[in-house]
């Protein structure tokens, strides 16, 4: 089974990368973008034996730094193109 973990910066944490991307978007001549926040997408292929608790542990202890980041876990049906 595929699992998709999205890691994003918490509100209030400065995201200079997002700001630079925002600036570059404006450079494309596209206006109306209010804000840009950059995060990470981590895809895992896991056995069915991997529990939700295991996934939480992975996220809390490694994939996200809970001081600055939030995470979201989604189990994705294998046939779906990730």
């Amino acid at each position, binding site marked *: 089974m595929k699992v998709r973990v999205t890691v994003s910066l918490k509100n209030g944490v400065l995201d*200079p*990368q997002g700001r630079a991307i925002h600036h570059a978007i404006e450079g494309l001549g596209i206006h109306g973008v209010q804000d840009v926040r950059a995060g990470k997408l981590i895809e895992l292929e896991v056995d069915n034996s991997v529990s939700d608790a295991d996934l939480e542990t992975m996220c809390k202890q490694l*994939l996200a*730094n809970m001081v*600055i980041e939030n995470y979201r876990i989604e189990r994705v049906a294998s046939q779906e193109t990730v």
Partner: protein
Amino acid sequence: MGVFRSAVITFPGSNCDRDLAVALEQVCGGEVLRVWHGDAALPDKVEFIALPGGFSYGDYLRSGAMAARSPIMQAVIEAATRGVPVLGVCNGFQVLTEAGLLPGALLRNAGMNFICREVALTVENSQSQFTAGYHAGQQITIPVAHHDGNFFADSETLDRLEGEGRVAFRYAEDVNGSARQIAGILNAAGNVLGMMPHPERMIEAAQGGSDGRALFESVIKGLVAS
């Protein structure tokens, strides 16, 4: 006390480990042991542990994130808990926050640029075992070389760090966007110091200055006295 023994931990991608070992040899003397990240235990009777700068594991995931989970770190955490002094410089500081030995996190520099230059620091706490050789308010010059040096913690944590005298060094001016211009912090017990600037690069005149020397002297003097 027998021969003073210190240890420098090397992770894959560390690049200031030799500089740190030279500083320890020249200023603290004794035996400087080089320890590999994959080792499960520290050598016996290590009295001072130093985590070097560099780009451990290529900064994959987050700076210091992989290194913080490497086998040797369990032994470092255990030693730190026993009160062994632990110094983390630059990437070493990032590793210490990722390992939970120090609060907060080091974010990308606010200006996005890698910053490599000498900076002025103010010594905030001159009572710690790392800073006893300085006086409070002293201005010193130490180089920085980092991309992720922007110290972040929530305001409660920042208030606590300041209230407990755990801010060891502050940048004299805004360098990288760090909260309250914090450049280095101590743990609650005072035996773990993490700092972005590189004191090991300022131990003799040939390096352009020796303002970092007192940090290593403070540690060895403190240990000899105890």
